[in-house]
C-alpha cells in the first residue's frame, strides 16, 4: 500500500489518516430492483487484480468520503476524487469520473472545507 494519499481537499497526507470501506464499483440498485441485482450488489465482487476504485474516508482529516483508484498488485495510488463528485460523474453529470489528485493545498484548504461543512 502506498504510504501517501493525496486528498483533494487537504493535500498529500499519510495513509494512516485514511480508513477504507471497500470496492466502489458496485452501484446500489433501485428499490424495486430484482432480487438477483441486490444479491450481486451485496455479495458478488470483481475482485480486481490491478487498478481498482475504492471508497476511503479521510477519517483523520476533512472526513470526506473519497474514491481512490489504487492498484491492488503494485499498491500504487493513481487518482483520488471526492465521492460526491465521483457519483455525479457516474450519473452522467458534469463531474469527471476520476481526475488526478491535486497537489497539496495545505491546511488552508482543509480549514475552508471544514468551514463549508459547518455552514
Amino acid at each position: 500500500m502506498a504510504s501517501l494519499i493525496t486528498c483533494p481537499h487537504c493535500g498529500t497526507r499519510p495513509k494512516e489518516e485514511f480508513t477504507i470501506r471497500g470496492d466502489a464499483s458496485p452501484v446500489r440498485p433501485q428499490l424495486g430492483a430484482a432480487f438477483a441485482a441486490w444479491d450481486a450488489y451485496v455479495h458478488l465482487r470483481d475482485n480486481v487484480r490491478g487498478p481498482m476504485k475504492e471508497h476511503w474516508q479521510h477519517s483523520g482529516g476533512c472526513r470526506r468520503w473519497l474514491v481512490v483508484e489504487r492498484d491492488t498488485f503494485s499498491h500504487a495510488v493513481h487518482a483520488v476524487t471526492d465521492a460526491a463528485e465521483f457519483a455525479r460523474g457516474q450519473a452522467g453529470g458534469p463531474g469527471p469520473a476520476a481526475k488526478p489528485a491535486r497537489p497539496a493545498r495545505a491546511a488552508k484548504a482543509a480549514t475552508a472545507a471544514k468551514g463549508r461543512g459547518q455552514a
Partner: protein
Amino acid sequence: MKYSAFSILKQGLSGNKGWQPAWREPEPKAEYDVIIVGGGGHGLATAYYLAKNHGITNVAVLEKGYLGSGNVGRNTTIVRANYLLEGNEPFYSHSLRLWEGLEQELNFNAMMSQRGVINLYHSDGQRDAYARRGNAMRLAGEDAELLGREEVRELVPFLDFDNPRFPVHGGLMQRRGGTARHDGVAWGYARGADSRGVDLIQNCEVTGIRREGGRVVGVETSRGFIGCKKLGLAAAGNSGRVAEMAGMRLPVESQVLQAFVSEGLKPFIDQVVTFGAALFYMSQSDKGGLVFGGSLDMYNSYAQRGNLQTVESVMEAACAMVPSVSRVKVLRSWGGVMDMSMDGSPIIDRTPVEDLYLNCGWCYGGFKATPASGWCFAHLLATGETHELAKAFRLDRFSRGYQIDETGHGAQANLH
C-alpha cells in the same frame, strides 16, 4: 521409499547418497479425469484423497509456482476446531481428527504438536461468549475447557494479567489444538498423492478455461492445453481470477494478511495463545522463534506484502498481551493473499458451469482446514455429491440467505 528411523540410519551410514526425490516431475498428459488448479495444501490434499478414498488416480495438480508456494507456506501454522456455528464445527472437528492421524497416514513428519490453544477473555461479556462457544464445541464432540484466571496463570504466567484496561480473567482452552509444520503438510500430501499416481505439475499457470456446450473440457496453461473431464479450483487468493476465466463472479475479495517471526528464544510460550482485546495470536516454533500475527491490512491486495501500519498495531498487541516480548527482535514478516468470503466461511461446491467445482473462501483459516477440505472436495469431485460435513458450504447460500457468519459482521469481507 518409506521414511523411518531405520531408513535414516541406513542412509546415514551410506553417506546419504540413496535418498530419492519425494515426488516425480512429470510432463503433463494430454488429458486427465480430474485437474485441480492450485498446488497448495488444499489442492494437494484433494488429489491425495481422490486417489486414496476414491481410487481416482488419473489426476493432475497444476501449480503456477512451486508446490506449497502460496498460503500453505505463509501461515502461522495453527490447528484448532473451536468454531461456534453448526455449519462449521463438525467440519473442523473432522479436520482435527485427520490432523491427529496425518503423520502415520502420510509417513511424513508434519511436526503436529497438540500443545493447546487458549483464547483469552477480558470481560464478563467475553467470558459468557466463550462459555457459549465452548459448550457448542462440546456438543459437536470437541474438547473445550473454560479456564479461570489462576488456571491460565499457571500455564502462561507472563501475561499482563493486571492490565487496567484489559485484565486477563481467563481463557477458553482446546487442548487438542496446536500447531503443525506448514510446509511439511504440503510436502506430505504431495508425496502421498504422487506415489499413488497423481501428476504434480509445477510452473504451470492456468491462463484460460476451455468450455464446449457449457461443459468444461480443459484448461489453457503456460505449458499448453490440457484436457480434463472435471476441473476443481483450489486457488485460494487467486480464486476470483480463475473463476473469471469461466465467466463467474465470486462472493470473495482478496486481501493481504501479515505474519511475523521473532529471533529464536529458549522455550517460553508452550501453547497457542490468542488475545481477546485485539485480533492477535502467538505461539513458539520448535526452532524457538515466536510466530504471531494480527488482523488483515483491510484493503484488497494481490501483493504478498503488507503495510507498516499493521506491523505497528500487531507489535502493540504483542506488547499488550505479553509485555516481556517488548525487547525481542522480529526477524521477518511476510504477507499472504487471503480469499475473504462475504460471511467469513468457505465454499466447497459445484458451480453453474458443468464439471467445474470450486473450493475457496477460506479467509485466514485455511491451514487448519487442509485435511477436511481435501477430504470433502475429493468427495465432491469423485461422486458429484456434496459431502455431509461440507453441506453448509454452498455457493448459493449467499443468495438464499444461509450465510455462516461466525462473527456476525455481515457482507463486508474485510471484517471477517
